[in-house]
């Protein structure tokens, strides 16, 4: 599992424009973070039932409405629910750093985003390994496309995410701890097109600060 420093630099709005000093600072925080915190993940496999109103994941007691889920899982007989988090320990580090050095804190924050993504990638590799001969769709999350954020609490409940990862949802649908991701992946019998990646599919496309500066986060 490796923290992608270029990705962290992009989250900071810098990307290729970063000078050596900034890159070095980001590398320093990345090294510190990866030594202190490991991403944890948990997943669960559930059969998929396609219906007129949406996708039913019966064993998980979960119903996914909208076009995104229907399209993503179109060719899938099973789906994986995934959650990944850097846990409360990352939040504690970030709180201390915000009190000590705000500049360092924003770097740590960007590194945290890249690190939790690395955790998701690792989970995805493991899942792929459990299903030889099958193909995974892209990961997609509540808030992507038209998959509503309101599915977040049920998704976490289906994953027993508090017990497994210490992951909870606030009444305003924020995941806590802060650096956490939940996602759905489909399992299909033939190769799946990459669909979710890119700004066109991102729910942040209207408001993304990187886009305002003419950049992308690379996802």
């Amino acid at each position: 599992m490796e923290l992608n420093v270029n990705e962290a630099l992009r989250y900071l709005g810098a990307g290729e424009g970063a000078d050596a000093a900034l890159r070095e600072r980001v590398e320093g925080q990345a090294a510190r973070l990866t030594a202190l915190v490991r991403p944890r993940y948990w997943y669960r496999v559930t059969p998929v039932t396609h219906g007129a109103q949406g996708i039913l994941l019966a064993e998980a007691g979960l119903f996914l409405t909208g076009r995104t889920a229907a399209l993503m899982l179109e060719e899938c007989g099973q789906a994986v629910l995934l959650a990944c988090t850097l846990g409360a320990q990352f939040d504690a580090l970030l709180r201390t750093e915000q009190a000590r050095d705000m500049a360092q804190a924003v770097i740590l924050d960007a590194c945290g985003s890249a690190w939790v993504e690395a955790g998701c990638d690792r989970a995805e590799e493991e899942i792929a390994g459990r299903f030889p001969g099958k193909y995974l769709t892209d990961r997609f999350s509540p808030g992507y496309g038209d998959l509503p954020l309101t599915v977040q609490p049920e998704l976490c409940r289906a994953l027993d995410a508090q017990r497994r990862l210490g992951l909870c949802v606030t009444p305003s649908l924020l995941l806590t701890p802060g650096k956490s991701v939940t996602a759905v992946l489909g399992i299909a019998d033939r190769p799946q097109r990459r669909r979710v990646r890119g700004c066109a599919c991102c729910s942040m496309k209207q408001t993304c600060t990187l886009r305002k500066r003419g950049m992308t986060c690379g996802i």
Partner: protein
Amino acid sequence: MGSDFLKNGIVLLDGATGTVFQQKGLPPGGRPELLNLSDPELVRSVHREYLEAGSQVVYANTFGANRLKLAHTGRSVEEVVGAGVRLAREACAGTGGRTALDMGPLGELLEPMGSLRFEQAYEIFREVAVAGAAAGADLAVIETMTDLYEAKAALLAVKEHTALPVLVTMTFDTGGRTFTGCTIPSMARTLEGLGADAIGLNCSLGPDQLGRLLSELCRNTRLPVIAKPNAGLPDPVDGRYDLGPEAFAAALVPLLDTGVTIFGGCCGTSPAYIRVLKEALAGKVPAPRRYAPVSMVCTPTVPVRIDGVRVIGERINPTGKKRFQQALLEEDLDYILDVGLQEADAGADILDVNVGYPGVDEVAMMPRVVKALQAALPIPLQLDSSNPAALEAGLRVYNGKAAVNSVNGKPEVLEEILPVVKKYGAAVVGLALDEEGIPQTAEERFTIAARILEAARAHGIPEEDVWIDCLTLTVSAQQAQAGETLRAVSMVREKLGLQNVLGVSNISFGLPNRGLITQNFLVQAMAMGLTLPILNPNQSEMMDAVAAFRVLSGEDGECRDYISRFAAQKAAPATAPAGELRLTLDEAIARGLRSEAGRLARAALEQGDGLSLVEGTLIPALDRVGADYERGVLFLPQLLSAAQAAQAVFEEVRSALARQGSAPVKKGRIVVATVQGDIHDIGKNIVKTLLENYGYDVIDLGRDVPPETVAGTVREKDVRLVGLSALMTTTLPSMEATIRLLHTLPRPPVIFVGGAVVTADYAARMGADYYAKDARQSVEIARSILG
């Protein structure tokens, strides 16, 4: 019904209920607790099966029956908890089995990780505890906790509102930490101190992985210890647990050797597991417990064992510090936190916290400061006050086991403060003085110390939690007293076996080269048995002396800490060598060199006044950095580094003004807040950092701030500019509600908004005056409104 049954031999609890209900057809996603009302016979039958299998205690089906999890079900806590407890009691009737009220985590994280306040969590647990006791539970169980703070809220709620014995079990990973980072010693000492009747581990791991953790737990508590593990780990693909009943029992039985006496099962177990376990345990005798008392204070993540010298930082204290007094009066918690951070970075193990000052409401301020410090700093606190109400308010919200500074030999003081110490399981410092004052001889001080220990014991406080302060007197005024203090320290150590606390700095008052005297006294006192010196850890000669002492006493194994301390000092010289680098203040700010900027500012302040320094040098330097940021040459971290270097300059200006007794220069007040429901506040904190470093007086209301708090602050302090931030689409409505409420004020402020999901359009539609696309723009807005 008392808790004696927990202490006599082996006790068998029950196994899982949730997974058993699922096997019996509870649909996925359904709330198992609602079965208490919809299918009471099913619930009763599961309890009966456990009782028949040998369980002596069954957990009522109330794990998630709290106000938060029952919201939208149309059922009240009283109904669901009451029914659950009654069903378990009905099943127990005539069997000799006991009914436990079961309380699990609330399902939302507590502050500072989540938005649920400690006091709210307490209220929610109180409701459950009262309903469970009213329905006739024999005991209460708090289980599957990963946050020690939440466990404390639940335990206080049960202890304060019922007479039930309480079991508390938490969930750990193989590394010996909970998800929130809580350690086994921290859990043990905190919960024992708060009055739990038995503690242990449940869920999360299989029994084979629990052995090492349970043995650590047994070494850290006098209480009976519980093991209630899962049937191994579930497979993510098929959901099955990997241990059958025989393997489960075979892994649990050896735990008897560590001293565990209370057994049961968690997820994946069933009555069959309990039956096999009962047979496997039959006739076995648990090993005797070996608990060696050690003094300790802790936060959840950092247990500090006092088995050598541990430094207590003294800087969070207004006495004789103008800048600190001003921060207290202005409720500037950031400043206080910064003082604590510096002490922690300098190597303090524990921080003394004193916020008593005329004009400060200590009872309100103590818990606020405790919460602010523990949110950002992992080290334990020693709450320093003579006001029992302030101490109780602080101890109540403290997460872990704290120390209290102090009691003394006066009977009325002991009677007032020791019950508070006992209730919250704190350690306590006893000053060797009484109504006659400070005795002149070591023997007399020792006598008072012994009296304090006696009183503490009478209140049920164990002796490892009693620390004695033999009192340092100024050697230039009472020269013979230095020797008496040292003798008293030695007697307390040798004859009472207690820890010694001593504030050492006073010794050198009025003498030249104070550091030398203080350092010498510190070394002699440590040699006599001082383990808890209270000092200023920013004075490196004191910390050097402690580091050297730890080497000579053998405490610092292989001199590791000593070597790394001095290797680090060599690597990073405190000041740049002369001649190598001559920066102007302006350059130091642009390059974000904090200490350099502070040093240059100090020099500049000797020549000129603060205001011209700010207006003539600081602001133009920041503007140049800001322009580079706009052009995309510099990025956010560099902008913030410059701002922080500017902060160091401001701090120098403020200190200079405080020394002169002048009012602080502030360019105008701005309220900033992350709106209600939103707890991602890094964006707001970035804005605050920048605004403060342009000289604005920023009132930071924090995160998850209700509209009423924003409006109330604006009205009360007549604030003209308000910045609101929101990160989630789900919290935009509360941003809008805040703006609406601000518009109803007699003198509505100017409002700017920002945050990931906010756009210029949306800002206008919500009625905000300005949209700030980034933190830098908020400075421009502030300038145009406040100048």
